[in-house]
Structure formats: C-alpha cells, structure tokens
C-alpha cells in the first residue's frame, strides 16, 4: 500500500515537474548577467560570432547568443521581439522599414569557381546567362566541353536577394540550378566540384575557391572601397525601436575601432 502511494507520488511529481517547467518557460528572464540574443542572416552570423567571442572576453558579465535563421527570419524575429538584434545581409524591404537598421560593414559578393578552373574573369552578362540557364556549357565561356554545375542559394536568403538585385537584373534564376542553404555549403560544393560556379560572401573567400573578376575587376577590398567592384551589399544589425542598453553596448563595440578591425581582418569592408 505504502509503496504504491510513493510510486503515485513520484508519478505526480514528474507530471508536476512537466507543468512547472512549462510555466517557468514564460518567466525565465531575470538573471544577473546581461544576455543579448541575436539571430538572422547566416552570412552575418559567423562574423557576429567572432565579434561576440571578443566582446565576451572584454565584458565577462555579458552573454551574446548568436543564431542563424536567415535575413528574413532575422527581420521577423526582431519585429516580434524574439531577439534583441536581428542580422540582415540585404537592404530592408518597404514593409520592414519600421525597424531601426545600423550598417555594421559592407560585404562583397564574390563569384567563385574551383581553383582548378582556368577562367579568371567573366562579364556580368555571362554570369547572368549562367544563372538564367542560357549558358550551360563551359565551352561557351572558352573552356572545355563540360556542363556548368551552377549553385545558387535558396529563396529568402539575403545573399540570393542581393545577387538577384545586383546581377540578375530582373531575370529569373533557372530552375535547373542547384541550391544550397548557406555560404559554407555553396563553398563546399565549389571546392570539391571542378566544374562548379556559385556566389558567396567575400569574407569567406579563401584558398579553397577562386574568386572571379567581374567585368575585369577583381573582388578585392581596394576595388570595393574605390567603388570599382560593384557587387556589394551591406551587413545590417536591426533593432525594434531604440536598442536597449545591453544591445547598445554590443553594437557600440561592433562599430568601434576594435570591432571594425576584427571585421576587416575577416575580409569585410569596414565603415570607418
């Protein structure tokens, strides 16, 4: 009899725990430490994580939580106060203008191919042709007779949005083009497939893929700063209204000399 009662009690306890934990969920905010939550563009995320690492070293009482999700999700999360700061790698659309945006840096979009590819430059028309599905063979671009494995990003991605605005000029990206869901995965495909072409954030350019010159201008920091390389989009931090003090501290750090130097080292274009 006693044993059963205890067992029942345990059962009820577990059930209670269940309910309790649900309840705690709503009110689990009051902590000593300052937490800044950030979500959004997967292009901005790696750099924000880097910034957060340095920031937390200097401000041990702060916790910066960085999530991906994508530019559009970042905007959305910011609008319904799920996060303190949203990240976007494209300009805000008209219906999103209610948010306050801060440009933390600029980023070039590099058109990349496998290092084994002999081509060094393409024109905007050629790039447009490849992603529009009109140019399907490397032969047409002066290389071997082999199909082009073009890789794009998925709908909703800030990088894709900027690529469409800056390169495609209202033409559609063809349905036969492969799609990957982050800069990193596009880069992986390009790095392993000798016949691939794609576009990634300039900050992620390294020895594993080769950045092509567009209309003869290579994607370098100097060329972007001088305005010669035109495929550039901003990295934005978004807040809903004025940022609160914690978010402000982090944004100030990012905009400071130190933060900008970190971004510059990562291959982004500072706004100093």
């Amino acid at each position, binding site marked *: 009899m006693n*044993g*059963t009662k205890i*067992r029942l009690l345990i*059962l009820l306890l*577990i*059930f209670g*725990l*269940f309910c309790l*934990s*649900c309840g*705690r*969920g*709503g009110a*689990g905010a009051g902590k000593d430490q300052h937490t800044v939550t950030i979500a959004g563009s997967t292009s901005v995320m*790696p750099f924000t*994580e*880097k910034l957060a*690492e340095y920031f937390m070293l200097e401000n041990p009482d702060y*916790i910066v*939580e*960085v*999530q*991906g999700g994508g530019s559009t999700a970042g905007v959305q999360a910011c609008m319904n106060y*799920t996060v303190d700061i949203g990240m976007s790698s494209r300009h805000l659309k008209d219906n999103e203008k209610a948010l306050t945006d801060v440009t933390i840096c600029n980023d070039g979009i590099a058109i990349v191919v496998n290092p084994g590819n002999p081509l060094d430059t393409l024109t905007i028309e050629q790039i447009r042709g490849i992603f529009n599905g009109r140019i399907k063979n490397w032969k047409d671009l002066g290389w071997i007779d082999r199909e082009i494995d073009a890789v794009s990003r998925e709908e909703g991605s800030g990088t894709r949005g900027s690529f469409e605005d800056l390169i495609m000029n209202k033409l559609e990206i063809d349905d036969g083009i492969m799609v990957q869901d*982050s*800069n*990193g*995965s596009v*880069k*992986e495909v390009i*790095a392993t497939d000798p016949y691939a072409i794609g576009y990634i954030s300039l900050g992620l350019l390294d020895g*594993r893929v080769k950045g092509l010159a567009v209309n003869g201008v290579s994607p370098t920091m100097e060329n972007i700063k001088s305005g010669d390389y035109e495929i550039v989009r901003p990295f934005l931090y978004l807040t809903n209204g004025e940022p609160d003090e914690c978010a402000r501290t982090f944004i100030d750090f990012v905009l400071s000399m130190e933060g900008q130097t970190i971004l510059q080292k990562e291959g982004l274009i500072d706004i100093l």
Partner: protein
Amino acid sequence: MRIKPGITDKMARIGFNSMAFFTVGILVVIISIICIKGVSHVNLEFIFTSPEDMGRHGGIFPSIMGTVLLALLSIVFATPLGLGTAIFLTEYTKESTFTKIIRFGVESLAGIPSIIYGLFGFIFFVIKLGMGWSLLSGVLTMTIMILPTIIRTSEEAIKAVPRNLRIVSYSLGATRWETVTKIVLTAATPGILTGIMLSVGRVVGETAAVIFTMGSSLRLPTSLMDSGRTMAVHFYILAREGISMEKAYATALILVLSITIINILAYYIMNKVVSKYS
C-alpha cells in the same frame, strides 16, 4: 537449355550469402571510415573543451552536454506517458475499438517523419507557445517523437510477462495496480529499458527535428529556455559548411560510437529477456 536445379540451388546459396555479407560490408565500411578518419582527432581535450571559431578549433563539450540534456529530459517526459499507455493497453482494458484507435494513433505517430516533427515543433512550441529556439522546445518535440517507441517496446515487454505471475498475484489478494507495479513491471523492466535505450539512440541521432526546435546556439544551455546544439546538429553544421573536416570526423566518431554503444546495450538487455522467457 534448362539449368539443373542443383546448380541454381548452389548459385542461390552463393548469391544470398554474398548479398548478406555485402550488406554487413556496408556497415563495416561506414564504421571503419569514421573510426580511421576520426580517431586521431579525438582526445580528452576534444571532449571536454568548448569549440572556438565556430568549431574550427577546440572541442565539442557544449554539444555533448546539449545532447545528454535533450535525451535525458525527453526520456523523463516520455517514459511515464509511454509506460502509462502501455500499462493501460495491456493491463487495464480489453481489446476494443477504443484500444484500436489508440493503437492507430501510436502507429501513425511512429510513421511521421522527423521533418514533420520539426515543422510542428517550430510552429507550436517555438512560435505559438513562444518558447523560442530552446532546450524546452526541443525536449517537448522529442518527447512526442519517441513516445511510440517507448509505448511499443513497453507493451511487448509487458505482454511477454507470463500470465501465471499475474494469476498468482491476484490470488494472493493483490489489487490490479499492485500486481502491475510489483509483479509485472518488475519482470518487464529490462524490456522497458530496451525501449528507453532505443529512444535515447533516436534522440542522439536526430537532426531535422532538433535544429528547428532547439536551434543551433553553440553555448552550453544553462536553463530550459536556452538554445543549444546537439552533437548531430554540430556535426551537420561542421560538415555542411565545410568548417573543419577533422573536427567533423571526430564528432561523427563520438556520435556513432555513442549510438552504437547505446544500441548494443539495448540489444543485449532485450536478448536477456528473450532467453529468460522462452
């Protein structure tokens, strides 16, 4: 020309043999690739330190803890529910339309693919209930996902308990609940444990449903409302983003190793039960 039956018979034997060994070969190849490529990058430091630079350097400690927390908490929620259902189905009711409907529900839950659990958890827990990407959203989603496994294995374990044990218990004046808790559950414990182990294995290996509910924050979750990353999600991000192949293989090794150990334990426990009652 007809081939002699004796020859086709021999050919069939050889064919089936080789097909079976080919299949086992696949398993051996998969596990050896992961072991060979991963083992040189696994050490205590890898297990007990935090990742740096998105996982390019450092270890995977937060994701190991994230996995353990997710699995343990899901089990804590799912076991009473699943076991309760199994007890109800086997001990407290006769086969009827009602039990058929419940069984249909369990079967259907079992067949739903993890991406649908992810979609559901995302819209219900993360968005509608406002839990955000958090350990709690992950746990609740996983609880529903592993419930069918726990119910089925517990039910089978309970059914395998010989009828006479119950009869003796009742004849000694025990109530139904006493019989269930003291006699039946005690005898069925190993079988129930098997179900729990298999469920843990499933949670540890899950990605699609976890990434959309628990998020992918690299930090160690310190409360139920914190987002976190399991080993499987960490591995997915490492491999897919090409962050570091060495770390990816090392993470895969720990992931596959833990699932293998869990499954072998589950199988071992189950075999003990089978040999006990047959």
